[in-house]
């Protein structure tokens, strides 16, 4: 064939199309953002664990010190022990609850579903505080309801308290995952089993359990990660029983030993990352198990089973309500347990350390910013990764990076952000590269960023799922008609995905309000936060005001959640009219 340089030349000019390049640049930015605020800080943290305090390379000597100091290394076994028991308890209870919700005809399902989600609105510190009021020295149960009945003395501080608080904390997650798994089944399997004359017992072991295999494994690992990395519960009821998350805090805040903090963080990171990887593999299989042609299973009434389910769920729901009710009661009581008259004394934070009521407003502000920036970033990146064409490799890398934050404990994010944002400049091969993010240190910016990253993955996956439900050809159709991508994004993609974006925003808000672990390293004295105030007041022994502040956090979250309900209903009614037939 003859070569035709003229056509080649004009071709390269023609393909230089502004829009395509804007998309490319944005996709690269989305990748760069994950590298900058996830990969790089964590890498720096890991690197620090191999350095001396003076910044010399120390090899594994920090780790040797760690494992040779029983006071430190015992935390690892402690953490594994409480997490394993929490996981076992939470998965068992969660399975029973989810089974009752999805496979029986008991009444009040909506109510139970709502109650079981309550712990998601609370800082885990509150679980600890409520336990103190129930099982502490002057606790409701240990003293037998203020001496009315014989008390049951319990050794609260230590593994018992931590496990109890963490089961409560991980329970909603277990119920959520297992409900999805139990719902994703094909009714025809059960019909086949029944028609073949299998007993309910046999059906349970040959169809029900294998069907939710991956959901169960996933629950195991999610609960494990949550318990393993939880800071709130052991902070309040851990007592002398050290776990990794509190160790990091003690090393960094108590002893200003940042290097050992980095070492403990790395130790914390290993099981977490392993669990995370296994969980991802399982989830991928779970979703491929169900085809579009499956028939959903509708439970049939069964007297005995439904009564059992109702009894169990009522007991759990009452337990949860009583649990937080006790904390609410305690925050309103004048002097527990001596003067039980009610009042709002503990809600007057002016005499307390920790920033007072202003900290609550700071928290609300931070959560609002986190919700806005987080929704923007997660939805934007998910769109670029899911819907743009070309640069496959880069988009795949971005996708993988977007999953990483789920494997990062809040303490690790917090500590790595201290290192990352506090560094004035990096020296590389003799060059000094000034850190452009240094100015964020100690500001609202770093708090918001840490939240955006901390809760990134779940939101990102929500956005991805929503986007995947859109026809692949929307972008192609627009392109063929010469409509720029941003126009289709604004007119079709965002409106159709509005419910998902609202869900992401509320997820960000609620979690940012309740979180302690990342922000406790990053807040500055002139920008106190409510959840941190809870930790600090509890530290100072002011348990009642701590309970009061935690209650305010729960209150704000429930309020915002209700607001979300209304907004969502309005959105469904107006902008989603097309979805109704």
């Amino acid at each position: 064939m003859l070569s035709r340089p003229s056509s080649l030349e004009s071709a390269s000019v023609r393909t230089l199309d502004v829009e395509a390049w804007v998309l490319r640049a944005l996709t690269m930015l989305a990748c760069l953002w994950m590298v900058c605020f996830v990969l790089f800080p964590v890498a720096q943290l890991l690197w620090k664990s191999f350095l001396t305090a003076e910044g010399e390379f120390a090899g594994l000597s920090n780790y040797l010190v760690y494992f040779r100091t029983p006071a430190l290394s015992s935390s690892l076994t402690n953490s594994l022990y409480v997490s394993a028991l929490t996981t076992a308890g939470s998965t068992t209870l969660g399975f029973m609850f989810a089974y009752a919700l999805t496979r029986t005809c008991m009444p009040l399902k909506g109510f139970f579903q709502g109650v079981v989600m309550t712990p998601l609105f609370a800082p885990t510190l509150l679980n600890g505080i409520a336990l103190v009021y129930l099982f502490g020295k002057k606790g409701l149960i240990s003293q037998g309801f203020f001496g009315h009945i014989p008390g049951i003395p319990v050794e609260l501080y230590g593994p018992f308290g931590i496990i109890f608080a963490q089961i409560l904390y991980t329970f909603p997650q277990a119920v959520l995952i297992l409900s999805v798994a139990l719902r994703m089944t094909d009714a025809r399997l059960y019909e086949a089993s029944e028609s073949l004359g299998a007993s309910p017992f046999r059906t349970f072991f040959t169809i029900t359990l294998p069907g939710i295999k991956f959901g169960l494994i996933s629950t195991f690992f999610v609960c494990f990660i949550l318990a393993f990395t939880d800071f709130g519960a052991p902070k309040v009821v851990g007592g002398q029983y050290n776990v990794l998350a509190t160790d990091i805090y003690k090393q960094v805040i108590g002893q200003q030993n940042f290097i050992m903090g980095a070492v403990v963080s790395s130790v914390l990171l290993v099981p977490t990352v392993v669990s995370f990887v296994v969980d991802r593999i399982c989830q991928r299989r779970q979703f491929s198990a169900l085809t579009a042609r499956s028939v959903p299973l509708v439970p049939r009434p069964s007297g005995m089973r439904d009564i059992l389910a109702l009894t169990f769920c009522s007991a759990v729901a009452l337990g949860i309500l009583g649990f937080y009710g006790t904390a609410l009661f305690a925050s309103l009581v004048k002097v527990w347990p001596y003067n039980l008259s009610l009042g709002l004394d503990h809600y007057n934070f002016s005499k307390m350390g920790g920033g007072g009521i202003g900290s609550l407003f700071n928290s609300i502000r931070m959560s609002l910013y986190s919700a806005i920036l987080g929704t923007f970033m997660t939805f934007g990146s998910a769109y670029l990764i899911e819907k743009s064409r070309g640069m496959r490799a880069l988009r795949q890398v971005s996708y993988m990076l977007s999953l990483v934050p789920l494997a990062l404990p809040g303490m690790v994010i917090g500590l790595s952000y201290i290192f990352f944002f506090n560094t004035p400049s990096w020296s590389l091969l003799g060059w000094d590269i000034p850190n452009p993010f240094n100015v964020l240190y100690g500001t609202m910016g770093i708090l918001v960023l840490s939240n955006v990253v901390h809760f990134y993955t779940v939101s990102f996956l929500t956005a991805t799922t929503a986007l995947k439900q859109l026809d692949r050809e929307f972008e192609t159709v627009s392109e063929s008609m010469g409509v720029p991508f941003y126009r289709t994004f604004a007119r079709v993609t965002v409106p159709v995905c509005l419910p998902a974006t609202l869900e992401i925003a509320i997820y960000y808000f609620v979690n940012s309000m309740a979180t302690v672990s990342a922000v406790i390293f990053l807040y500055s004295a002139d920008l106190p936060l409510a959840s941190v105030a809870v930790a600090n007041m509890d530290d100072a022994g002011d348990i009642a005001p701590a309970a009061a502040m935690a209650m305010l956090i729960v209150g704000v979250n429930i309020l915002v959640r209700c607001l979300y309900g209304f907004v969502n209903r309005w959105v469904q009614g107006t902008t989603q009219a097309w979805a109704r037939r």
Partner: protein
Amino acid sequence: MMEPASSYAPETYLRVQNLSKRFGRFKALDGVSLTMNRGEFLCILGPSGCGKTTLLRAVAGLDRPDGGEVFLDGGEVSHLPVYRRNVGIVFQSYALFPNLTAAQNISYGLQTRGYGKARVKERVEELLALVGLEGQDRKFPSQLSGGQQQRVALARAIAPSPAVLLLDEPLSALDAQVRARLRMEVRSLQQRLELTTLMVTHDQEEALAMADRILVMDRGCVLQTGSPDEIYNRPASPFVASFIGSMNFIRDAVKEAPRVFRKGGLRLVVDESDPVPEGAPAILAIRPEDILICQNGEAPRNLLTAEVSRLEYRGANYRVEMNLLLDEAETSAIEADVTAERVRKLRIREKSRIHIDLPTDRLLVYAA
């Protein structure tokens, strides 16, 4: 019938030359060329995975081929992105925007082309009338039936007056009855607007019913191009013959003399000359509906005896499965479509021994 008055003389409007595309080691397109006249309806027909959608996407500019050129209206467009090629596309899934009304969907591509508000409204109304959806302009896609959605997708694609309309299996998501009706509607719309149209389908009936010309593809290659009549009655190869409609093959025949073939005790005469050398093996082929059942006394040139093995009732006719008696021991299976009326009249039943004729002008010959 009157020919629609055309202002254009037939001329090559779209030309595709030597397109090739690989996905890893898989050759999706292997040097495909085609031409289309202005206003022509060309159907690309082939089994799934034959490369037909890849070809359509390459013509549209959605995917870049590895080699080859595309010319449209005299100019090369090989390197132009999709929106500079002025093509309208209808996808299998329609890809209608769910949150926009029918009218908003149709006007989607108009607004960016500098149409004024009044003109957009006018054009949308014109198109709604054209596809028979007057008064449905404010409905969302989910409120429309599958056939109506399809029409909205079609209206949206032709709204900006594209040079070429590309249809990617546009009717395959519909149920049989709606599909048959829309087939005619799309075709008459295409003829009225004189739209140069390229359609991809795996449904041979659809291709025969709608197209001016059909291009049969398999494994990334063009096997045959021709009018529906040519494709059906003069398939270029046994593959094309068997892919479109049903076809009986009489294999292992040997050419005895010009236009005379032998298999076992059978001697078959054909009308048309063929390139098979004498003494060489050949494959003879005939469509089931071309086989004739003979009554006593008739003596056509290819009179054969067969035993009916099975009758399959199909309403208007029967599919008669039978075994040709080649000689004492050997038989060969063959199928004929016979009207129900004739089956009743001749009292054909299973195990009946009947005489059939393979008309000399309907027998096809392929080199083995």
